[in-house]
């Protein structure tokens, strides 16, 4: 296993859309393991493959307090179940240190393949529902800062640039 480098906003590679996984093989499983290790070390509750510069539709998530309930989503598809929405303070490993309220559908259903390539369906609640939407956005080249006002996004961009410079 290895800890991978997480790309940081505004890296243009975060804007590339990921392509579907055609076969869940050992290469994909190795990627999953590395992504889990990277997510736990960071620490984060979710990680999408494009954040570590792999343009495949792979997401790992663990929202448990005990940090021992990993979920793997390969080729995830989200279905919005109703009009209800909720706001949540989101942060992102690719936008380190910033937390902003993002408004998203509350009730969703997710179809995906697990690490063995078996299809499964879940209707996630609470943080899990927020997190999977956040990660699927990544797979589509979208970041949570895209939901913010241009002014806020620009401020975050400037501050991060300064930090990336200061610690480079």
């Amino acid at each position, binding site marked *: 296993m290895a800890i991978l480098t997480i790309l940081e906003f505004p890296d243009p590679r975060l804007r590339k859309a990921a392509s579907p996984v055609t076969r869940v093989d050992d290469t994909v499983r190795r990627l999953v393991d590395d992504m889990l290790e990277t997510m736990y*070390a*960071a620490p984060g*509750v979710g990680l999408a493959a494009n954040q570590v510069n792999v343009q495949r539709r792979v997401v790992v998530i663990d929202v448990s307090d005990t940090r021992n309930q990993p979920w793997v989503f390969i080729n995830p598809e989200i279905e919005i179940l109703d009009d209800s929405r909720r706001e949540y303070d989101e*942060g992102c*490993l690719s936008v380190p*240190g910033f937390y902003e309220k993002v408004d998203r559908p509350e009730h969703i259903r997710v179809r995906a393949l697990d690490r063995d390539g078996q299809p499964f369906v879940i209707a996630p609640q609470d943080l899990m529902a927020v997190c999977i939407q956040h990660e699927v956005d990544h797979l589509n080249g979208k970041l949570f800062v895209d939901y913010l006002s241009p002014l806020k996004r620009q401020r975050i961009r400037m*501050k991060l640039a300064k*930090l990336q410079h200061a*610690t480079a």
Partner: protein
Amino acid sequence: MTDAPDPRAPDLRTAAARAIAAVAQRGQSLGTALPAQASAVAARDRPLLHELCYGTLRWHPRLAAIIARLMAKPLKERDADLHALIACALYQLEHTRVPPHAAIHAAVAACAALGKPWAKGLVNALLRRFQRERAPLDIALATDTSYRTAHPPWLAEAFRHDWPEQAEALMAANNDRAPMTLRVNRARGTRTAYLEQLAAAGIPAAPTAHSPDGIRLATPRAVSELPGFDAGLVSVQDEAAQLCAPLLAPRPGQRVLDACCAPGGKTGHLLELEPGIGELVAIDSDAERLQRVAENLARLGVHARLLAADAGATADWWDGAPFDRILLDAPCSATGVLRRHPDIKLLRRADDIVTLAATQARLLAGLWETLAPGGLLLYATCSVLRAENDAVVTAFAATRSDVQIRPLPHHPGLATTAGRQWLPAATGNDGFYYALLERL
């Protein structure tokens, strides 16, 4: 994605950062700074707050060297709290079992509580970079004294000058956690009996090698857990301090002076050793601290005459009746007890040693006049610097013809010109200096 900060977590790290900054920037002692912050956090978090503050200060010179290396430009003076917060997080990453993600997350979250949300990214980036670059950092800082020894360079230099062969072990011992040692009250029972009481209470402990009254606990405890503590069966006192009273060996009917007595540990020991002491006068310059001496003596069931005075200004307090025994546990740099008071690493300056040595010389010369011919004075400090120990005693002895330096052949520690220097040991005693002088 990352989850929003835990609203409860910041309090503890914020409080720790504020306490550490109060020491590092404003020169407060941790004894003052910590209680001020502890009151703000939940009771269940206080043990961790205590551990974080002590640990961060214990390693502060090393942690500050890491921060200086990782930052392109230093933080501003007004951001001393951020520096403290980062140091505290580095301490957790380097020296504790706090999960790294928790340490970093909590530090980032604490930025907002400190009113500096702009620093979240900076703190996060720096800590993560530290995690990534530990090995190269270690190489880059290999010759940096602060990093390598976790002592301020002037102090490391002073140790190496005074104790060239022991300096590295001495500094390693200073960076350890201090053990908790008890002194059994002889007037109330034996050491063997109390060891049995501890065993029955499930508290692992062992007798000390040099003090006949000492018991070292395997792990520190709250005194409230100790059997018979309130009834005065035992006191908390390091083994090194326990050797003072026996050196003076007071006898029945003698007049004894404890010149800088607070918090009264040795005062009590003198009276436990010889309940027949004619009169014990205990002086301290701080009236508030004398209150603690009174409480300690009351717990042990012994009595002394307490005076708030400057012991060296004998005209202010001395009645003219000479003392047969004087204990001068002189105010000092406390460089022998850095592991108990790690804030001293930051608070003490090289200049202080000169000032302290002058005070020590003044106290010694002043008190000597109150010592009866044939009487004994024990000069002791919890310093390990020669300037405060041998240098003070030999300079004094050289000016007088009535000073006889008594050899201490059976005493632990390194023999020096005038006495014995016990250096702090990793799992044992504190650092302490003793010189026994007889007035001819």
